[in-house]
């Protein structure tokens, strides 16, 4: 595994999603940078840290499911049965 600071500190180009949000990684959204220039300034984040935060959020949510129940029922499957 190689780590190059310059690479980690250069995020992929921003793609606008709505008039207030952008995306740089799949399914990861950010506030449009021009909205964070006065009271709260956007911080520089290495790419790995952005992805780590997103993944640990996903881990936390998966943990919550396991904490409250053994399995999770799929609505898509139930809907498929109903429509079928």
């Amino acid at each position, binding site marked *: 595994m190689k780590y190059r600071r310059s690479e980690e500190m250069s995020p992929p180009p921003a793609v606008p999603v709505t008039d207030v*949000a952008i995306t740089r990684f799949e399914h990861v959204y950010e506030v449009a940078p021009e909205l964070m220039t006065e009271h709260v300034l956007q911080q520089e984040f290495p790419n790995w840290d952005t992805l780590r935060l997103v993944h640990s959020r996903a881990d936390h*949510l998966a943990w919550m499911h396991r904490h409250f129940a053994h399995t*999770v029922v799929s*609505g898509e499957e*139930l809907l498929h049965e109903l429509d079928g």
Partner: protein
Amino acid sequence: MTVTALSDPVLGELRQILGDEHVLTGKADRLNRARVPAPFPVHRWAERLPDLVVMPGSTEEVAEVLKLANRLRVPVVPRDGGTGLTDGAVPLRGGILVDVKRLNHIKDLDLDNRTCTVGTGINALKLNERLAVHDLIYPDDPASYPCSLVGGRIGTSGWSLIGSRYGHTRDLVLSFDHVLPSGQVIHVGDGIGRKITKSSSGYQLKHLFMGHQGTLGIATEATLKLFPKPEAEFSPFWAFSDYADAYRCVGLLARAGVATFAGAVLFDEWKVAYLRRDDEAYIPQPSSVKALVCAALYGYADEVEAGGRRLMRIARDAGARYLGDEISQGDWAARHDRYATPLHGRTKSGQVAPMSWHCEDASINYTNLPSVRLAWHEIADRLRRESDVFDDWGMFAYTNGATGADYLTEIDIGIWEQRLDDRTWAAWVRAKRDLAAVALAHGGSISACHGSCREGEVDLVPQELGGGFEVMLQIKRALDPHNIMNPGKYLLDQAYGAPS
């Protein structure tokens, strides 16, 4: 009162009762317990400092502390997780803050009667990790699940996200040891039983000693009802192109009578607009999505699947669009822990500003939800016109019970706490009073979960309770003749001659 005013003989006696290490006088110890998450002007935080903090390790120690405070007329404020949103755990008159977090042991686990007995400083998440070994769960599930504790749940008579299936704190706590302001220890439950679910013997004191915000004493050890850990969970989220359809649908789901139904939630247009700014699930939604509904079911897999199928059919026939498994499962899991919500709002120009969260939490009947929603947003709109310190984060309505009669009705308002000055704080208190007045004008209750002793709302408590408020004053005076327990809360100073 200052620390020096409490130094001798109080400090010395407390150290004798508890040991030196459990009497805390440091600035950080006191500052850490001077506030709760409900927004309050930063320049006034120092008004709410306790003089000292004690951390008792047993019911007997709590009793000794209260005897001493009663004898020397020192104010006492109980505090557990400190997550309460009506300022219950912040001292208004200094004094001794009794932090019960050391009372966090599991004392008894009775697998045959399906109960456990715990110290009130324990957290349900930690308790459930231990219970999972036995495939059991204690299902008191507020949106503060990881950080609120059993004693605070008792002190507020809390509300649970899955209460429509399992009941709320008052239903789940069977009985508890309670230390009266005099220091006398009593046990309250249904009748005297520790593990009894239903008794008709005598007055029903359990309810009296729940939800009093620490004004009637301190609960130290509680016996709780346990359930099998659910085999399956189902939490569908649906989108609607207008609020009226979503409102109709949530009513149909809540009235369907599905046994595993644990709750349903309605999100209004303002909430969807708020989520569209900052929530990864809703940013990419098409602009036609104007309102949302979700439901939660828990139980054995075959029951949950059967109930789920029925609710999916009802929602589909009501014009709902299912948002898919990923959003449905992710969003529901996030509801157990709203501390993880990003706390920032927008100024009127759209700039991001750091904001704390105010949550209004009335109980409103289903038929009154649409008009309360409009009246509340008008108040939020007025605030926003007045100052950039406020932001309207939209409304939720969560079922209170399985029959769909009434809903915890929540408007979330972002407040830029660091910028709250005396003028904007006064505007906020006025708005709080107006929000509570709307709830009462619609036959509702000011609070479904947090309690109603914050500035503004508390003024209307006598109106909500009517003649019951006079009884509340009489009870307070009888049980706490020197007004030592959490003085200044709930207008209870009136029991001692303060003007009404």
